[in-house]
């Protein structure tokens, strides 16, 4: 599915939310995140890998997530990102905002979401 116009613009703003959300349950590395986003969106959402890492670095800089090089047996060394307490607060706040935003859109434009 290809988004156009307003939705494509909106997608950019969602990257941070999605990354924080996927890191909420467990630490993951960049490739895993990219895969998850693609799979869960059924291929509708993909990020260029450089932009994904740019987002990760930005979040790390803000101290919302924390990256660490981990070497697991039989695997190559990877950088795992873990959400910080501060990140969780931001995530909760953002979730709340998005929810309110969607409710508003639904009410105003008659758009329903499943």
């Amino acid at each position, binding site marked *: 599915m290809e988004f156009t116009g307003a939705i494509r613009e909106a997608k950019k703003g969602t990257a941070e939310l999605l990354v924080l959300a996927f890191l909420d349950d467990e630490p993951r*590395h*960049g*490739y895993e995140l*990219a*895969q998850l986003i693609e799979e869960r969106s059924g291929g509708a959402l993909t990020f*260029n*890998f*450089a*932009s994904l*890492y*740019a987002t990760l*670095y*930005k979040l790390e*800089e803000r101290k919302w997530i924390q990256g660490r090089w981990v070497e697991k047996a039989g695997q*190559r*060394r*990877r*950088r795992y990102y873990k959400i910080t307490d501060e990140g969780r607060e931001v995530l909760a706040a953002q979730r709340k905002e998005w929810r309110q935003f969607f409710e508003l859109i639904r009410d105003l434009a008659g758009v329903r979401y499943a």
Partner: protein
Amino acid sequence: MPDRELRSWKSLVRERADREWRELSLEVVDELACHLADLHAAALRGGSTEHEARQAALDALNAASFLEVSKRPRARRSPVGVFHDLRIAWRQLLATPIVTAIAVLSLALGIGANTAIFSLVNSLSLRALPVKDPQRLAILDPQDNGAWTYPILEELRRRSQLFDGIFAWDTQRFDLANGGVTEFVDGAWATAGLFDTLGVGPLVGRTFTEADDVRGGGPDGPVAVISHAFWQRRFGGAGEAIGTRLTLEGVPFTVVGVMPPGFFGPDVGRRLDVIVPVGMLTTVRPERSLEQRDYWWLSIMVRLKAGQSIDQATDAIRSLQPQIREATLPINWPTVDLMQYLKAPLTLAPAATGNSSLRQRYERPLLTIMVVVVLVLLIACANIANLLLARATARRHEWSVRLALGASRWRLVRLLLTESLLLSAIGAGVGFLVARWGSQLLVAQLSTQTNTVFLDLSIDWRVLAFTTGTTVITALLFGVAPAFRAAGVSPMEAIKEQGRGAGSETGRVSFASGLVVVQVALSVILVVAAALFLRTFTKLATLDLGFDPSQVLVVTMSAERAPIATAQRMAVFERARQAVASLPGVQGTALSFITPVSGHNWGNRLEVSGGVALTDSRRSALRNEVSPEFFETYGQRLIAGRAFTDRDRDGSPLVAIVNEAFARRFLDGANPIGHTLRRYPVRPDDASLEIVGVVGDAVYRRIRDPIPPTVYSSAMQPDRSLPSTEYNLNVRSASGTSMLLTRSIADAIAGVNKDLALTFRPLSDQIGASLTQERVVAMLAGFFGALALLLAGLGLYGVTSYAVSRRRNEIGIRMALGAAPAAVVRLVLSRVSMLVGLGVVIGAGISLWAAPFVATLLYGLEPRDPMTLAGSIAVLAAVGAVAGWLPARRASRIDPVVVLRDS
């Protein structure tokens, strides 16, 4: 192999970032590469072929923009910027291999030559002796006598409160062989104070002490301390060497100690392989006595007290001078000389860098060559700057793209300077190897059969600092111009010009032309210098010596250890001569006390009956004692009177033969035959000699010296004042090399007396060795002069070719309008001649100004010799003509049709 795979992804990420002119930190590169590797692996798992999987990952990479990831703050903090620049620089150098190779080669030669000469200068003049606290060492300035007597040393030692230590030494080549053909080792007589005063201890065993340093040897008998190198060479570094007997000049010495590896003694330029106590002198040389007050042989070094300055120490020693001089007055000296002796002030000179005759001899030549190699390096820099400028022009498009993509100008400059520095560093690395090899080769060139030069060429901080400094300065010299040229690029240029030459091109050509003018000017200086030194050497090497040295073998016979009564020595030497004379292949034989340019001299002040009035110093004449056949064997012309005959022996009237220079000096050119000569001032036992013949002038001490007035007396009427334990047998062979006769001569002499020690040396070698300095300077100047010519020629060729290619359109149009090829050649050559002409004028001007600085190194020509200057200019012009003609000819073959179509 996952590691290799990951590495390949990393390098792809880096390349991609380079293309975007972005810096990525190592961590970011790692992470992105990891991601790509995962993508690739996942695609393979999903059933893609290797090619498809790789393409998928590459697509992701190519679609990426590194703008944001590169802004990661830690990337700026990490040193990756420098590595990144170096990597880009390395790739740029590899991209133009020929330019890089030429540049590296020129730099290696330039920096290598500079490092080599500097390390010689360093070892000879700058490096402190490898001993304790060398700054406190001082040497008693030997003034006119060149050395000191043992009694003076004794007087100084008696006043031990003056210094913290004092010692004396005299370098000496000791014969290790026990009779027959000699085998020399560099060594010295030294007083026991040498070790304590210098503050060096033995590596193995012990050094010798005051107890050993007594006449005839101490409790252990005659003892010797050897160098580490000699220990390795002679004893294979075995511990048993201690206690071993070593025969020196026929006297057995016991080795008691080995010095540490870095120690070579107080003399710079030679290594003392064997050190024996001064007290052993009379055992080895029975004719000598330590008490002798006119035997000037010792150098004296002292260690100043802590905090004492040289001037204070000199004052202290001067206050005691009258007593010291009074107690050591030479016996039998004329009053005039004694007065002078008493007055001559004792002076101390700093000796932190040791004592060196080599230094005096080579300081100026080395300095001259240092200037030469600096000029060569400058020419090389100009060449590389030109090469880089040409490349810079080709890269303007690339740079403007980079600027347009957001790179800062400083970034461009930094990158180009990194490139220059890298180039320079590679050049320096190779140059360092060239220098190691070159400086060793040079030191080997300085050694002769009788003088083994040893210089400690190990790398110290000075050499490292010099090379590093040279490398950086070099890089700046050739790198700044292209770098600033890059900084002047405008981002719009890429779009406007598509990389084509434009207005600023004129600037590039005129700058490059300026560099060529500088190169030509510097080359003129170097070629003039090379020509001056080569002509000096040629003049000296081909000079008429006054005798014919070819096929003459000098056999030095030493009766030092032969049990022959003094009165019988001459007879033994004469019998040896007769034995050799009857050998097949021997054309002539003669005895002489001195041989030419051997380093030995014998001179007196003389007065001649009926001679002209002369000042004391003008009365000096050199002397020699020769047997009757001498002039014939040497091929020296007899001009008037007679040569010596067998009748000129003990008991008959004393006779002398003089040379023409003697007649000119002492008799104002009048015929000297019949005049008598004697020592001046006359001493009680001096006899008069009657002049019976005149011979042609011949070189005596140094080839460069004007021929000195020389007096020959008969070997059969020997001067009793001479310690003539040593005599030379000169053998002229009938054909071939005289060295082939060595064996039969040694056997023949052994037949007469097997205890005579023999040293063989062709006379031509001896003469060649005396020209070592001139030969080395000429060789170096010639080599670097030729190198300078080559570099300047290449530079001129490069700039002309470039100018021609730029003016291709113009030339094409000219030809289309009817210009003849000859006119095109003229057009190009006129420009070349302008550059060469300007360079020649500047270079000739500087040469004329600088020439007097090398005057003392020249022989037989004026420093501003017009022939040399004209010749050098002609050579430069010829090189310029060739370098200009090749591109000119190419220009004249331009096809107007092709040019017009292309444009």
